């Protein structure tokens, strides 16, 4: 019996970096992208921060850490949003600039492109989260890092979730083109109500709780609230979120690559 050959595609870090660089070059020249990355997170934090502070002033005891919990949730949601948004909008950037055919006429492989989109999301997430953390500290003298070193795995878990939502949206865009581009902005929010971002899962109706338990994001937000409000760190939530997040991310990337192949049947030109 001859030994089985396992096909492992050769991945070029040079080509991945080339795609990352294409978006890095664009960043300082795009007012839209600067606004998305800096202006909106700050506006969210200002509005929600003062609202929750006012709510806190109306009560006592049980609402002690509500402001910090809501603002941390807000910054955490930026991680999901940023990772999701970067994947789908960077795909749209290629369609808007009629560059998709040009790019895939090079040796670039779809999987390298996927890895590049994830890298860009990772880099920009740092900027958005940094801005968010800084704004919370400056405006409310609150330190989101009070959650401690567990901030790191939480952020990583949320990034996996953001990427999976992003590739889900990008898959649809790859099939439908720019006429369904609104998916890039709306897909993330479809998951927000079920992810228990600002409220505990128990306030949701039963059917919605079932959906929520199937999402990796829910465990991060629930875990974060438990750590901040009760001082209890829930390890099992981290594991559940990690397992679900990785499964969904792998499935979403496979779906995206399948949609790229499907789109190739009609040709990338028609998407531009």
């Amino acid at each position, binding site marked *: 019996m001859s030994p089985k050959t396992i096909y492992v595609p050769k991945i070029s870090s040079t080509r991945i970096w080339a795609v990352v660089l294409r978006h890095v070059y664009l960043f300082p020249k795009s007012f839209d992208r600067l606004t998305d990355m800096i202006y909106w997170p700050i506006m969210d934090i200002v509005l929600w921060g003062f609202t929750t502070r006012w709510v806190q002033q109306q009560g006592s005891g049980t609402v002690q850490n509500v402001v910090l919990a809501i603002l941390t949730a807000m910054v955490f949601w930026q991680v999901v949003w940023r990772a999701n948004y970067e994947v789908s909008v960077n795909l749209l950037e290629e369609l808007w*600039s009629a560059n998709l055919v040009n790019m895939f006429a090079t040796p670039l492989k779809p999987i390298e492109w996927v890895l590049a989109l994830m890298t860009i999301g990772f880099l920009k997430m740092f900027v958005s989260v940094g801005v968010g953390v800084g704004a919370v500290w400056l405006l409310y003298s609150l330190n989101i890092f009070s959650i401690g070193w567990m901030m790191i795995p939480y952020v990583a878990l949320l990034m996996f979730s953001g990427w999976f939502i992003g590739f889900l949206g990008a898959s649809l865009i790859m099939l439908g083109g720019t006429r369904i581009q609104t998916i890039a902005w709306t897909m993330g929010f479809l998951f927000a109500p079920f992810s228990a971002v600002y409220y505990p899962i128990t306030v949701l109706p039963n059917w919605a709780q079932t959906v929520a338990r199937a999402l990796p994001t829910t465990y991060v937000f629930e875990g974060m609230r438990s750590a901040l409000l009760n001082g209890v760190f829930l390890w099992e939530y981290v594991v559940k979120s990690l397992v679900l997040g990785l499964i969904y991310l792998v499935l979403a990337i496979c779906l995206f690559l399948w949609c790229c192949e499907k789109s190739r049947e009609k040709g990338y030109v028609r998407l531009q």
Partner: protein
Amino acid sequence: MSNDVVLSVRNLTKIYPGKVSFTALDHVSFDLHEGEILGLLGPNGAGKTTTIQMLLSTLKPTSGEIVYFGKNFFTNRSEILAQVAFASTYIKFPDRLTIRENLDVYGRLYGLTANERKHRMEKFLKFFGVWDQRDKPMSTTSAGQTTRVMLAKAFMAHPRIALLDEPTASLDPDIAHEVRAFVAEQQKEYNVSMLFTSHNMAEVAEVCDRVMFLQNGKIVANDTPDNLARSVSVSKVQLMMGDGMKRTIEYAQQHNLVYTVQERFIELEVDEHKIAELLSGLAKAKVEYTQISIDKPTLEMYFLQVAKEAKERK
């Protein structure tokens, strides 16, 4: 596959499914030889762009085989595309990036080193006269400049094959001339093989070693530009009339010749072998003309003839 064949296409077919399926390319087979410039001609919708898109893998064929350098394209895509360049007037660059940034990105995608990117960028941008604009965004460049940057991108990678989709469309005549000279130089110096589409027949006749004519997704001719032009037997005889326009028209009608009249000029389409007979007939009818020009059959005439025949068949 003979040794000097760098691209071999066999039975390439593209059918778009739907309520009424549409066959864009129908069992097309051809070879591209090393150092050869092959023109791909045909009216709009003939299948030229479809062919090029499939040769780049941005469109999936329904069936058929594409072999570059003896290797199957579908299983060696990335390795092959490192040696195949593409330029098209209809494809763009990210317009907020500068010329330099765009070429830097594409140079990296083709695996060029920092030194190669720097030197080749300078060489090609200077050749195409856009070096001074290198730090300007693509959105500020003219259509002609964009086309030249596209060509710089294509040849920066020192490809073995270049797929050029109407590379001179939108260029001023002097720049188009430079591009043709550049293409010829790349062929001569680096033995680059090229697939070249254009609507400019004179250009195709000048640049291409061989021409493949596509009509409704099928190859209807595959020969040298001269041989294709020779297959058209009709010449055009233009006369600037002195006296006898009416008698010339009567002569054309009697002999079933196609003619067009514009002020003092008349143009008659006549079989190449019957030009002497025409001139003799006009002399007998005492027709006087002050200028005469005879257009030999050209590739454009061949193009028009094939297009006309296809229209009549429909």
